[in-house]
């Protein structure tokens, strides 16, 4: 497989940030966005294509984790507790 191009890496970066902003929990959301930015910035000068591919593969796996967890937590957050007078409304900013 040809090593990932700059464009692909940037696409991945944007996709990860976009997905991370959908975490309903404040602490997870802020952590994911911050960690992704810092992570990509830290590795921006890596030249070795093998190393780049390893990093990209890990990032793709992490993107999968974020997607799954965002989905999982939004259904859990939507689960109603005892009282039926609660409406769903805005997503909450923290995970309880």
């Amino acid at each position, binding site marked *: 497989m040809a090593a990932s191009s700059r464009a692909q890496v940037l696409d991945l970066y944007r996709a990860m940030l976009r997905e991370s902003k959908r*975490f309903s929990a*404040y*602490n*997870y959301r*802020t*952590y*994911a966005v911050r*960690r992704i930015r*810092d992570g990509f910035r830290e590795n921006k000068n890596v030249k070795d294509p093998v190393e780049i591919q390893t990093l990209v593969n890990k990032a793709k796996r*992490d993107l999968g*984790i*974020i997607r*799954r*967890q965002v989905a*999982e937590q939004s259904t859990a*957050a939507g*689960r109603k*507790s*005892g*009282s039926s*007078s*609660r*409406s769903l*409304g*805005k997503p*909450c*900013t*923290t*995970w*309880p």
Partner: protein
Amino acid sequence: MLLRAAWRRAAVAVTAATGPKAAAPTRGLRLRVRDLAPQSAVPADTAAVPEAGPVLRPLYMDVQATTPLDPRVLDAMLPYLVNYYGNPHSRTHAYGWESEAAMERARQQVASLIGADPREIIFTSGATESNNIAIKELEAAIQPDTSLVSVMTVNNEIGVKQPIAEIGRICSSRKVYFHTDAAQAVGKIPLDVNDMKIDLMSISGHKIYGPKGVGAVYIRRRPRVRVEALQSGGGQERGMRSGTVPTPLVVGLGAACEVAQQEMEYDHKRISKLAERLIQNIMKSLPDVVMNGDPEHHYPGCINLSFAYVEGESLLMALKDVALSSGSACTSASLEPSYVLRAIGTDEDLAHSSIRFGIGRFTTEEEVDYTVEKCIQHVKRLREMSPLWEMVQDGIDLKSIKWTQH
């Protein structure tokens, strides 16, 4: 006790407030919104509570008590809670084999974080059980004068790091077993059981962004350390801890250890910066604040401050938007000042005014700034109300006062 009762009253008062509040939150913070805690005690036929809008919950600064699950840990655990639910000790089918494989993978992850061999890791229900396994019977081992040294790696109340490598060297030269409770240290500072000559180590899952209810004990094989099992039964975990190993939990512990190994440097750097920020900003705005614990040998994420002339519990109640603690959760029911603070020679009155701030992987700069702001505001307010503070301002030396009995 008082604190929880007051909190419950406040929470009820908020839910009963009439009229929806305008949404517009200006800061990312204070919207610990939507209390989703199940309201099991609420009967369905009580007078209808008007729709009050989201309930605010405090922001979390008590990571020494427990930590939230890292999303990567939960992701690793879920398959074993949903589809791969086999008993890891079942030898006769794929459910058992895949569960066992996951358990052994987790064991390797834990071992790798502390420089151990996987055969030296026994899964337990937590660091408390691990401590009991490690310490029990070891003192009464073969020779009457064989003894055991047991030390916490990082203290959970004041964050002080013990000189583990030194202690390990001394114990090893005197042929004395060395156990350390590393619950607050694993995954946060580099640990190597061989470099530090550790014979036994306790590990806790929920202190490192893993699940509650799981931990591990490291038991050295070379030279062999013998321990007696606390829990007997089917002989699992090399006979040292019988009982089915809870695969989803140990997978979580393993994932937490692996994530910790990757993130240790990044987290440490960030937490140090945030800790510096918290301490500097509080101390430059408030006089008579003491940081408890040796500042040099200190884990940055656990900050214990004493605010003179302010009672700790009243400050905690005032800071109701921030989840904090004074003293350790293990002794929270009693009103005794912390034994740790007493041991380091803190004055009794300063010990009663101590608050512990916990900064972790998920703590944000915003949360730190908010906590600092509220802390300064409330300390100032409480001091204004304090007659002791008034006396100090007038130049009276409190130590010279003769308090009368009446």
